[in-house]
């Protein structure tokens, strides 16, 4: 039967049958909202999980599954799920495991928006109790309650670059039947794999080092049990913060170079930290790779092969000094993100603007702090830009 032009235009070429001999070297990008079925029984069987298959773009996508396979493997987890942003992943990981009346213990030094999510959303709106605790100097044991469900922290704290002993915190959490969720954004699996240290879930803003090219937003959860991800996936279907397949495809591409990028970020950061440590305008250099860092011992135990990541912070003494140094850079830019191939900086007000001044003070976040995301440039060029800028600013 000869079909009308409009019918041909809408139906022809919608199915690619790959010859069995053709194995694409790179996984294809499935820009698909939904899948077609010949009968309702098959659709129902796929929907119930009785048969394998894809149904709808919000529930699953083959490109996203390729990405999940990589993420699960590199974090040595059981399964993973991906979301449209780091906050999408964090909110899904936490909200899937909490209800009104439950209690969360969170480190008081965390990314500003995570802090705000716990305080303004979970605590103030949804009736979840939240204790912000100084994990580094206080004993978290005394904050557990019968209704505590989640302990939350970052591998490398934003912006103090502090490193805590995940093994100890995991032991405490598990002794109280709680889940430990660790934001591993600053470290990446190339530096630290929290699941191997006892964490139940790791979350990422994969926008940062995991992607490394500043061109997508992405969030990741990897868990040590498949049942945790199954549950989150199910909850996520209701909220819908899914990752676009195109972003998943770009993130896969990025992960191919993760190890060589992170090794270079870490080498550069180590040299930059040594430079800052000897600089008279820098009151403190916060980097776990420095032997003088209080975090050095534990970081050396839980990080891989002497890598300490690409993030460091320096205390320039005042907000004015921070602003002046930023203004006098020739190459380095203030960017409200991090983890890119270029060196970028951020002040505390930018990274932790979601917190009030009082909250920042309570968490010990000084306005004189400049957070530096060390890039892949030649480290001499990075140091030179700091040198000339700080020279102009003076003491």
């Amino acid at each position, binding site marked *: 039967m000869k079909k009308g032009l409009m019918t041909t235009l809408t139906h022809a070429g919608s199915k690619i049958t790959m010859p069995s001999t053709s*194995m694409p*070297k*790179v996984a294809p990008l499935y820009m698909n909202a939904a899948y077609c079925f010949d009968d309702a029984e098959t659709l129902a069987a796929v929907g119930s999980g009785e048969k394998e298959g894809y149904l709808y773009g919000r529930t699953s996508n083959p490109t996203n599954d390729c990405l999940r396979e990589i993420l699960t493997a590199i974090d040595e987890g059981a399964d993973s799920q991906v979301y449209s942003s780091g906050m999408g992943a964090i909110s899904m990981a936490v909200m899937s495991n909490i209800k009104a009346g439950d209690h969360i213990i969170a480190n008081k030094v965390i990314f500003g928006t995570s802090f705000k999510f716990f305080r303004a959303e979970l605590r103030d709106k949804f009736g979840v109790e939240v204790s912000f605790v100084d994990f580094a100097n206080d004993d978290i044991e005394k904050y557990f309650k019968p209704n505590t469900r989640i302990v939350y922290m970052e591998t490398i704290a934003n912006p103090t670059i502090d490193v805590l002993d995940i093994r100890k915190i995991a032991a405490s959490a598990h002794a109280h039947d709680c889940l430990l969720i660790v934001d591993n954004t600053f470290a990446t699996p190339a530096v630290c794999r929290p699941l191997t240290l006892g964490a139940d879930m790791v979350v990422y803003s994969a926008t940062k080092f995991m992607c490394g*090219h*500043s*061109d997508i937003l992405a969030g990741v959860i990897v868990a040590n049990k498949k049942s945790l991800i199954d549950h989150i996936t199910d909850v996520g279907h209701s909220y819908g913060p899914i990752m676009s397949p195109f972003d998943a495809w770009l993130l896969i*591409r990025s992960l*191919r*170079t993760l190890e*060589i*990028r992170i090794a*270079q970020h870490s080498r550069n950061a180590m040299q930059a930290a040594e430079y800052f440590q000897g600089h008279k305008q820098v009151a403190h250099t916060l980097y776990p790779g420095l032997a003088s860092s209080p975090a050095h011992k534990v970081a050396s135990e839980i990080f891989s092969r002497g890598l300490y990541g690409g993030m460091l912070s320096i205390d320039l003494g005042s907000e004015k000094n921070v602003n002046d140094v930023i203004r006098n850079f020739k190459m380095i*830019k203030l*960017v409200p*993100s991090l983890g*890119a*191939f*270029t060196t*970028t900086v951020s002040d505390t007000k930018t990274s932790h603007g979601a917190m009030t001044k009082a909250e920042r003070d309570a968490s010990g976040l000084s306005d004189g702090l400049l957070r530096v995301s060390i890039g*892949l440039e030649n480290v001499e060029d990075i140091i030179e830009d700091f040198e000339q800028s700080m020279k102009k600013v003076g003491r």
Partner: protein
Amino acid sequence: MNDPKYTRETGILHQGAYLQGRRDTPETAPIYLTTAFNVEDLDDLEATYAVKGYTYQRTRNPNRAALAELMTYLEQGERSLIFSSGMAAISTVLLSMLGSGDHLLADSTLYGECITLFNNMFPHYGIEVTLVDFTDHAAIEAGFRPNTKVLYTETISNPMITVIDIEAVAAMAHRRKAMLVVDNTFTTSVSMKPLTVGADVSINSLTKFANGHSDAVAGSATGSEALIQKVYELQVLLGTTGDPFTAWLVQRGIRTMDLRVEKQMDNAARLAAALEANPHVLRVHHPSLASHPQHELAKRILRHGCGGMLSFVMPDDRKLINAFMRKLNLAHYAMTLGGYRTTLSHPVMSSHHGVPEADRLRMGITFGLMRVSVGIENPDDLIADFNQALEVFK
């Protein structure tokens, strides 16, 4: 445009056409998927022409311009052009320099498609071609004719991984008032910058090591402003331009090129040494090895590494070679090279399929020769994988 006098049919085409508000400075360049750019009036159009502004995608596109700028920097030239493939770059560059009655003198061990282009296509346009072994400088001298306009070679040949002395060949070309065009694909600017040692144009199949992710096909040509202007004028007519999305992806790929290629070159040297030590391997071709005929030359001109490509010889036993390929876990056969994963290619069955047996044997291309594009895997994993697979020859 927010004028209520227009209908929905018109509005659906005109709304959202231009970015409103502040032009920020994105960390990453936007992708300009537009075939053309609008101008206000004829004066504006003339002004756009005057500054070589963006008008039509085949003539100029911001993503192609951005990638070209990056290539010019990396290759240390004056100007670059971006093409839809490496072959588009090679054909456009050479056709811009050669005309009917001119003579092209090229290396005989070039990429197969190049040999097809030179031998089968160029004679249609009255271009004479001679292919000689460029490792043999006397053969090059003997190949010159009064009408020789261009010499063409690759920095490292495929699949015997021989190294060409670009500086010496450039000097020979220039003595005869000819130009030297070099394909820098195998070495990339990480280990070789042909323009700095006398070449006139450096071409890259960006598809390979430069992009490195096996997901884009693109080419580039870099040289002096005057030479590239001639290439540009032909490119506009032939329409061999690269597309904006590919240009953006390749630029993204190049951000990690130094990290990748350095690792690939280091891995290749390690794998070459391991293969040479393996009793089932008859011979290994990689310039890092002391046994390589141009080892000393390579040490002198490829100071940052001898490239990520190697080849090695196994016994001419098709069954055992198949068993070896199936037993490898990490390296798969692929009709490309330079990607982050290690891949194999079998010259007799692919690049040199049409070459008569006597000719290919003279080049050293036996049935047991396997070419390896070394990836960025952990080198110990790679070596262990090759060694366990080579056990099939026991």
